[in-house]
């Protein structure tokens, strides 16, 4: 659990982060969102003390972060940045092993761990472990960046616009990857973005920031249905609101069990937005629903999507 308690950061006369209090429970996927200059990156970088707070305290699992040596604190947190920042003169394997070797893991264990992570991030370990970062595509480099952050199996993952520089297809794939990793591990993730759709796709908790202040924090659905002010309302999108509401709910929550409908089915884990899109594309108002193994579960109707 991470607790920010009235955390302020000033740069000269400018207040970058203004008395932000925020609790991120263990296992949460917390997305800090806001426009440029809202203070979200500064907030993230205060959690691993790359920036020291001017005022306020940050507690990580109950312990005051300021009482730990910064290097030690950072080694317990994975860190992924938009510009990736792989060490260009180190092989992929050595990059991934950076934190484990700082922690003094034996060589064989580091190698094994790098192999595991590459496989988990859908890179072929034998093909890439001896390569240098510049020999990989940007998407592959960011996969290695994520693997480096996960190497020592940290409980907390800090991600600063990690997918901001990627093309839409790669971004989509990596969003799916990080959602899967979060779901399987229950690590706590703090994720900075300015892309609302990315936030809605990934977050269990969204914190909206504006000019250094925390405006609203809550579950995605809560932000969409109960925005505290016009800023939040604008940010979650007035016109886009309906589609975004669909994107935070799953077919699982709305389908009618037992019904059978012909035609290509949709997965029960898909979002309602995907279901609506499929109906539009096929010109139908009902679609069969199957589970992950392809077993028929029922059907979802257009009327089920619209109902609040």
């Amino acid at each position, binding site marked *: 659990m991470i607790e920010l308690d009235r955390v302020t950061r000033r740069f000269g006369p400018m207040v970058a982060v203004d008395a932000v209090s925020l609790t991120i429970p263990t296992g949460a996927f917390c997305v800090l969102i806001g426009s440029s200059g809202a203070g979200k990156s500064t907030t993230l970088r205060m959690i*691993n003390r*790359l920036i020291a707070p001017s005022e306020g305290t940050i507690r990580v699992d109950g312990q005051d972060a300021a009482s730990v040596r*910064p*290097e*030690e*604190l*950072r*080694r317990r947190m994975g*860190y992924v*940045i938009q*510009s*990736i*920042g*792989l*060490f*260009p*003169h*180190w092989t992929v394997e050595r990059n991934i092993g*950076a*934190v484990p070797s*700082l922690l003094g893991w034996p060589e064989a264990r580091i190698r094994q761990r790098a192999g595991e992570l590459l496989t988990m991030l859908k890179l072929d370990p034998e093909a890439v472990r001896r390569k*240098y970062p*510049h*020999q990989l595509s940007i998407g592959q480099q960011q996969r290695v960046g994520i693997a*480096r*952050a996960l190497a020592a199996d940290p409980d907390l993952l*800090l991600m600063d616009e990690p997918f901001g520089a990627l093309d839409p297809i790669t971004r989509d794939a990596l969003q799916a990857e990080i959602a899967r990793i979060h779901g399987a591990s229950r690590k706590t993730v703090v994720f900075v973005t300015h892309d609302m759709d990315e936030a809605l796709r990934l977050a269990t908790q969204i914190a909206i920031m504006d000019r250094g202040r925390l405006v609203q924090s809550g579950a995605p659905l809560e932000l969409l249905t109960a925005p505290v002010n016009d800023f939040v309302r604008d940010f979650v999108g007035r016109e886009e609101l309906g589609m975004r509401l669909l994107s935070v709910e799953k077919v699982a929550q709305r389908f009618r069990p037992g019904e059978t409908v012909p035609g290509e089915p949709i997965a029960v884990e898909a979002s309602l937005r995907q279901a609506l899109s499929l109906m539009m594309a096929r010109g139908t108002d009902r679609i069969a629903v199957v589970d992950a193994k392809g077993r028929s579960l029922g059907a979802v109707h257009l009327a089920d999507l619209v109902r609040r």
Partner: protein
Amino acid sequence: MTVVRVLRDPLAWSLGAFILLVLFMPALRPLFAALFPELERPLYTQDSFLALSLSHLALVAASSALAAMLGVAGAIFVTRGAGAEFRGLVETLVAMGQSFPPVAVLAIAVPAIGFGAEPALIALTLYGILPVLENTLAGLGAVPRTVRDAARGIGMGEGGILLGVELPLAAPVIIAGIRTSTIINVGTAAIASTVGARTLGSPIIIGLDAANIAYVVQGAILLGLLAVVLDLAFDRLVALTQRWREP
């Protein structure tokens, strides 16, 4: 295969030529006698060319190694927290120093220290610091901010970042500075024989003084070859430090 590669390697060629000439220059006495029939002594014999080469190399190696250490250390100092305020001063000194010809440094060293190898060593070291310092500053400055940020973010300490990330990434530029410094020192060390150091410049200076062109040629050929050998060797070293850049 390897034989072919050695035969094609300019470093191997020039090094081989240098060593053969150093060892067997006396065997070329008939050649120099034929080329310069008017000279009574067509071969420099005051010292062996091996002794001259070794003392020349020792002077260059000592001054360049000292210059490299001081230059790199100085650049590291002014790019860290405590030394940052000296950076402007150091950069100005470097820029001014660079416009000073090395011969002038040598000339100043003599009245200050006296004749012999010591003033030469000091002058060469001082002058050699400048290119190293300048290149180390440039090399450290070119390390991407994002890489440094990532290094701090994953929990590397300042020393670890310097030794593991910054210096290796800056190495090609730093070595280029050491190379400039060393090559300048090879030439300046020759002139240092005017202040009493025994170097490959000795036959040249004595030859010029006594109008003995053969001496000048013998010294100049060895000196030129030595500079070429060192330059090619540095080429090899630079390539080694950036092997990771290969596609």
